[in-house]
């Protein structure tokens, strides 16, 4: 955990409103370092800039000031070294599972045989073996999110960025997906930045939980989760940490 994978240094992001010429500050002076293979969760009130931060790291938005470094190189544009997973899956409905997962290698001009091998491997990894020929409209919400994760993994990214990926799933599927994600993460040990509303989810999954303040978003408090995997939600340490973080967030809502 000592090697810094991703450095977010004094990042501010302001959006210009189209009408009236006023600007909103989405993030102010945001600082966070994420280590090699670390799992970090961002929690905070709605509209605190969690998603904005992910988009900045993904390179889909440009910082107004400050710097983002990945492996020491500044981030300015999207790239296959960062995989992004959205809450609403964003699968290509006209592509079957295999072709969705193979999209990254395909646009990177990886030879056909190799990218099909990669896709198959990633599909196996997320537990969808044998579903490669199915189309998104034939899949349940949980399966769609598995495809989205497999698609992000297919480029073998250095960092996996996840924007409330399990937010639209039912409780049971959600728990199952959390365990699947932990299994995948423990397998490939890539860094994960995971945005969620749920403190419980954050404590269950991550090495560190970053609590953000409301708009403009910035880091309020960072909690290390010193519980060993696999974690139990009924564990005393789990509950007390969850309550501590929930209390910290509640202050923010007042």
């Amino acid at each position, binding site marked *: 955990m000592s090697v810094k994978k991703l450095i977010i240094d004094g990042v501010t992001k302001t959006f210009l409103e189209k009408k009236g010429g006023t600007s909103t500050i989405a993030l102010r002076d945001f600082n966070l370092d994420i280590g090699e293979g670390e799992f970090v969760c961002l929690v905070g009130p709605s509209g605190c800039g969690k998603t904005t931060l992910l988009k900045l790291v993904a390179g*889909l938005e440009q910082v107004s000031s400050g710097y983002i470094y990945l492996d020491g190189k500044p981030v300015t544009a999207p790239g296959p070294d960062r995989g*992004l997973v959205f809450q609403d899956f964003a699968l290509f*409905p*006209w592509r079957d599972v295999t072709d969705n997962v193979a999209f990254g290698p395909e646009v990177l001009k990886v030879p056909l045989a190799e990218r099909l091998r990669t896709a198959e491997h990633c599909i196996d990894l997320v537990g969808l073996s044998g579903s490669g020929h199915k189309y998104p409209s034939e899949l349940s919400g949980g399966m769609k999110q598995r495809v989205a994760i497999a698609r992000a993994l297919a480029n073998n990214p250095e960092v996996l960025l996840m924007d409330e990926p399990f937010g639209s799933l039912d409780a049971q599927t959600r728990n199952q997906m959390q365990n699947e994600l932990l299994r995948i993460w423990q397998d490939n040990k890539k860094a994960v930045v995971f945005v969620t509303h749920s403190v419980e989810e954050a404590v269950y999954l991550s090495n560190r939980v970053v609590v953000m303040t409301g708009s403009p978003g910035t880091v309020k408090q960072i909690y290390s989760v010193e519980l060993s995997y696999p974690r139990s939600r009924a564990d005393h340490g789990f509950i007390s940490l969850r309550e501590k973080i929930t209390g910290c967030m509640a202050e923010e809502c007042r």
Partner: protein
Amino acid sequence: MSKWWWIPNTFRGEDTRPLRLISVLLFLLIWEGAALLANIPQLFPTPVAVVVALGQLLVAPGPQGMVWAGELMGNTLISLWRVIVGFALAAVTGILLGIIIGWWRNARDLLEPVIEILRPIPPLAWIPLAMLWFGLGFKPAVFLIWLGAFFPILLNTVLGMENTPHKLIEVARTLGAGPRQILFKVGVPSAAPSIMAGLRIGIGVGWMCLVAAELTGSNSGLGYMIMYYYSTMEAAKTVAGMLMIGIVGYLMFIGLKKLEDNILFWKAA
């Protein structure tokens, strides 16, 4: 509970064909009755007279260059060829221009004003100019079909391209896709359902324009044929021609629907 049959769709069998058959039979019956009552066969033919006329038209010699096909099929083939050429031109130009306008804002601002001025002009209003420019026959008909089919295809393509989900573009960018790959691997496939809808509307409008063009600017084709039998006061043959126009139009629609289901197979499931 007493009037349960008053609630929509409570009394409804598995097989819808009997009701549909009744619809057709009832229509023919009312038509036959009305025509018999009116008793002016030159102006208001009975269904039976129309069937007889169809038979006569099938065996009568075809138009110039199509004598072997018979009058009905010869004119049908001529009309069909015109609509195929005009529609193909409209599909190529409409889709290409639609992709450009729907994808690049600058192209939109540059081209939209002209399109908005030309679009409300009914294709039929172009008939005089079409005849001045292209004379009679094949060329003005193709021009009018192109004109009629072009706008629905263009507008639906523009709509489809503009409605490409932003999330899909973002995902493609994070996966490493460049601008051209995003256009062809995200924008165009995402617009495909809308483009297909435009083609379906376009072929309908094109078919209408064809008949209109043949009514005035031609000496062959189904439109010309029904106009000809107007001038000879043979209403049965005119109606027979109208029937053929309806059947061909329906078959083209069905064919395009089949094509659409094949291209957009991923929507079905």
